[in-house]
């Protein structure tokens, strides 16, 4: 085997592990190296392509979140029973054994099957440009939708505009940071044009985004809700049927019984805007705004209709009866009637 065929070792770092656990990793790396299988070398997290982290501790969780903002990296999660085992992430159970560590390194090596997976500067620039469409389509909602759909390998984006708090957000980490109180967003004119720029790896704003950022729906929900003014936004189609893939986080956003009604229907049935309007009795404009909000947050998914014959949707006798009972309970408990 000549030198050109030996792969260059990649860096691997560890955060949140005990000294004993780190020593085991050293031992495995040494053993692999002595067998001519040196594909990994222990390094600082700044230079690492893989990270072994205990995400049940704050230090490990924060390091992991920031580390995975950069694409084409591997995270080996230690100690978290409900680890997100999506692409590029592997679980390593405790107590760590040399065999299990070796297997994780093998899996991580297998992940890096294609050279040059890191996006080139040209690709990055093109992604930022793609995030800003032709004039007239550079409202906050349009740009947000674009970066949520395709982040071009960038870890984060900065949004600025007249009357808009300076927003830093990461679609991958699902976090957003605002330089002003979130209340200020309520007075923002969502039809205003805004600017977006990409944030590079290593930017000092990234750690702060991870530690102090709020969940992304804090921004996405009101943006989706107030940008359409009663019309479906371009990312939704009035002719298509949609179903809720998960409920919105009503604990952190304002809601009314109307919201609950619309979301309840969409959680049970694949429906068009007209279907939901007909069944709920809520104004079409209000239903459209709610679907816009749910759509921008990725809570809505296009789904085939569950009606064999697509006729008009009207509340059945069964639902009228249920509504009657629940309205009587609502009345008794002083809850708002929903019609």
């Amino acid at each position: 085997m000549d030198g050109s065929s030996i792969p260059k070792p990649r860096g691997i770092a560890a955060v949140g592990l005990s000294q004993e656990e780190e020593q085991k990793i050293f031992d495995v790396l040494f053993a692999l190296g002595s067998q001519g299988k040196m594909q990994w070398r222990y390094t600082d997290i700044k230079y690492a392509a893989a990270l072994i982290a205990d995400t049940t501790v704050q230090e490990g969780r924060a390091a992991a979140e920031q580390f995975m903002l950069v694409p084409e990296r591997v995270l080996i999660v230690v100690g978290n029973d409900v680890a997100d085992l999506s692409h590029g992430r592997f679980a390593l159970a405790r107590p760590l054994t040399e065999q299990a560590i070796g297997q994780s390194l093998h899996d991580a090596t297998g992940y890096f099957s294609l050279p040059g997976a890191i996006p080139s500067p040209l690709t990055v620039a093109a992604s930022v440009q793609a995030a800003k469409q032709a004039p007239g389509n550079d409202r906050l909602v349009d740009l947000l939708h674009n970066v949520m759909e395709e982040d071009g390998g960038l870890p984060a984006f900065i949004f600025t505009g007249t009357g808009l708090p300076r927003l830093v957000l990461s679609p991958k980490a699902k976090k957003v940071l605002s330089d002003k109180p979130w209340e200020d967003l309520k007075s923002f004119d969502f039809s205003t044009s805004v600017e977006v720029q990409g944030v590079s790896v290593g930017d000092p704003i990234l750690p702060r985004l991870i530690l102090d950022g709020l969940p992304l729906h804090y921004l996405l929900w009101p943006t989706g809700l107030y940008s359409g003014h009663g019309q479906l936004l371009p990312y939704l189609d009035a002719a298509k049927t949609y179903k809720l893939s998960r409920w919105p986080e009503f604990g952190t956003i304002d809601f009314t019984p109307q919201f609950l009604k619309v979301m309840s229907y969409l959680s049970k049935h694949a429906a068009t805007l007209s279907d939901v309007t007909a069944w709920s009795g809520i104004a079409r404009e209000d239903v459209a705004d709610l679907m816009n909000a749910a759509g921008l947050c990725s809570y809505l998914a296009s789904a085939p209709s569950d009606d064999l014959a697509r006729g008009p949707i009207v509340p059945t006798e069964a639902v009228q009866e249920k509504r009657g009972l629940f309205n009587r309970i609502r009345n008794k408990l002083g809850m708002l009637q929903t019609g």
Partner: protein
Amino acid sequence: MSEFKIIFTGTMGSGKTTAIASISETEVVSTDMGNSATDEHEKATTTVAMDFGSITLDDGDIVRLYGTPGQKRFEFMWGILSKGALGLVILVDNSRERPLEDLVVYLDNFAGLIEDTGAVIGVTCTDKGPGPALDEYYEVLLQRKLILPVFPIDARKKTDVLTLLEALFSYLEAAAR
């Protein structure tokens, strides 16, 4: 005169008795005894059979509010109590050691009732130290292909309990279609 029932379930100390008491118009009949399972929860008493509250509607119909005992050794009661129920409220104490696993226990044990009717999930004690974020509760539901609403609540607050009921009623109305 018709009778209906809504089931409140969840771990010991999650606020079932408190939630029922906040909306019941009758004093809650509580079958409490001294808590011998202090390794599970430090509270002094725990429900050993069920809590019972009620609301009488204007036409005389009655809505019974049943709280199931939270300890696993009483899970034989869960199926008995849930027969014929309108729906289910699951309360999860977010400050417990493994609240997501607690949720799974109730989702699995009440799977039939959830399938037939519906459920809402109230997460209590979210202010008592770090616990899973709501996103993680939704992940658990997603793994089970369940699309149910999750709310952070304070079981002592009537408005929060009414929020759970409103979500449950909306869900049940949509299911009836």
